[in-house]
């Protein structure tokens, strides 16, 4: 606000007075924040974490008498082709989907920050070499890389899927980190810290990270999102989690059968939960990105 009032003094000289929005002071704290998304995501998150209080049935129990039932009073969202209660599976499986999203993002962010920082502070030739390597890694189709890595790691489980997704999705964050670090590395405080004998990780954590954290925050949230998408896609295609490990993706892997019998609820319900979660994350991510001020249009 101080900026604006100072500009008003210059209004006589010809600088446009910036419209000081009076209402802005009166705006509520939640104004402009993606409130609906935060609440929805909160509900999904809380429901998944406290799944044992919500579940009406055992999600892994296969009720062979009641398989492939449409939603009704007893089975709120119906049952799948193996006779499991979809309502319970949603909450139980959501926990695993979200967990994989968070785990793999944690893995990829750590790799990205370290790789980006090394590449950003390294001498020119090493930097070029590292960037070329990333480019080559990027040029292998993602899906093929995932299939091969998964095969190397063995039987798919929560950890191995997270590692595979994490290892294949760090490049875009690494590029941003590298660009930021390259701009920061010759600033006085970094040089000073280095002169005082600060180690690589000390400088990275205390001096570099606080500066680039805001620019990668948005990408980190988006990475959680794409990790969840990737897990569900892989499980759907039969190369991710097996049917016994319930997640939204592995629930959808039954959809080929469901298409044949026309059981729409098996496809629709997990999908809606998936899409709503992803949508909320996108909204929050976009909000983080919008934090950078928008200037007045000249048109």
């Amino acid at each position, binding site marked *: 606000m101080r900026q604006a009032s100072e500009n008003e003094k210059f209004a006589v000289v010809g600088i446009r007075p910036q419209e000081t929005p009076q209402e802005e002071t009166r705006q509520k704290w939640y104004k402009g924040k993606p409130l609906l998304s935060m609440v929805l995501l909160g509900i999904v998150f809380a429901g998944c974490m406290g799944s044992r209080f919500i579940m009406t049935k055992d999600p892994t129990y296969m009720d062979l008498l009641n398989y492939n039932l449409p939603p009704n009073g007893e089975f709120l969202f119906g049952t799948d082709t193996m006779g499991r209660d979809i309502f319970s599976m949603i909450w139980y499986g959501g926990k695993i989907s979200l967990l994989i999203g968070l785990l793999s993002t944690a893995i990829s962010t750590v790799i990205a920050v370290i790789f980006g920082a090394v590449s950003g502070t390294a001498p020119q030739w090493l930097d070029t070499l590292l960037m070329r390597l990333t480019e*080559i890694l990027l040029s292998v189709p993602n899906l093929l890389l995932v299939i*091969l890595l998964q095969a190397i790691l063995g039987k798919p489980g929560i950890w191995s899927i997270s590692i595979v997704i994490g290892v294949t999705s760090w490049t875009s964050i690494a590029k941003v980190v590298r*660009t930021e670090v390259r701009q920061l590395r010759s600033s006085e405080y970094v040089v000073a810290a280095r002169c005082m004998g600060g180690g690589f990780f000390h400088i990275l954590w205390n001096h570099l990270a606080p500066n680039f954290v805001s620019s990668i925050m948005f990408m980190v949230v988006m990475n959680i999102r794409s990790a969840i998408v990737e897990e569900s896609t892989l499980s759907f295609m039969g190369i991710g989690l097996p049917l016994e490990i319930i997640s939204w993706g592995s629930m959808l892997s039954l959809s080929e059968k469901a*298409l044949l019998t026309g059981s729409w609820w098996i496809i629709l319900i997990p*999908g809606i939960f998936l899409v709503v979660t992803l949508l909320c994350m996108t909204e929050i991510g976009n909000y983080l990105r919008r934090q950078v001020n928008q200037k007045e249009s000249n048109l």
Partner: protein
Amino acid sequence: MKKKNYFLYYGRKLLIFLVSVLVLSMTVFYISRLAPGDPLVSYYGDRVEKMSPQEREWAEEKLGLNDALHVQYVHWLNNALHGDFGISYKYKRDVMEVIGSRLGNTLILGGIGFVLVFVLALLLGILCAWYENRLADRIICKVGTVTSCIPEFWFSLMLILIFSIELKWLPSSGSYTIGKEGDVWDRVLHLILPMTIVVISHLWYYAYMIRNKILEEVRADYVLLAKSKGLGKRRIVFGHCLRNILPSYLSIMAISVPHVLGGTYIVETVFSYPGIGTLSYESARYKDYNLLMVLCILSGILVIFCNMVAQTINEQIDPRIKGEEALETSEVVKI
């Protein structure tokens, strides 16, 4: 610039290109061999289980699978440089033939999809920027965000459920009805659903980028000048702003060629569309090594080539910055 420098310039690029392809082939070779799995299964099918150890050994010998890895690689490289990429274990035909028979389908799906994405994104982006923060913009932005959130495979499933199973309007799999191979209309019908997915899943990302770039441009000082000179909104947006963002859009689209063209894996798999996507999926899953190598290298070449095209475009636009730096500043983050 002198002529000699041009030679050096392109020579250097070519060298980087070749080295990259070589490293790529090596990486794929080692990763694929490290992955457990029996390539014999894809060659002999279920008969492998009944084979005696001697027969297995003989078969592996025949396919050259029991040499040391680096020997295998040098052998492969030598053959590849002579134009012989080996045979596909599964199809028992020359790899190039197998790919050739599928390539057309993917090019149609990805190529037309790419052009559609390119044009529609531009139009949609301009439309949104024109009506910034008005109702139309808000609605399009919301719908766009929602579509960009829907996982491709689930979207495909929903379309199949609605249009193929409930309404019975469109076929749900393949690229033509058996027995009607030459029927163009039949092929078009089979293309509609996969094409919709390809276009919708990419469209909003680029449209939103265009929208934001125009909005950024509109806030520049020259727009104020143009306006004070009395130019209309249309002249400013189309004559000045668009001209400024088009080159960078072109370079971004060049980078995304492999993205759109190669991003048809999931769509092809869901719709059992006989293209490169399903082929690579099969080859990676069933360890069809020779096929996998060629597919990876092809897509690698495409990616590296497109990156170089984008770099060149960027260098042409603004010779002050080196192309490599321009690539980083242009937002090519997949969301």
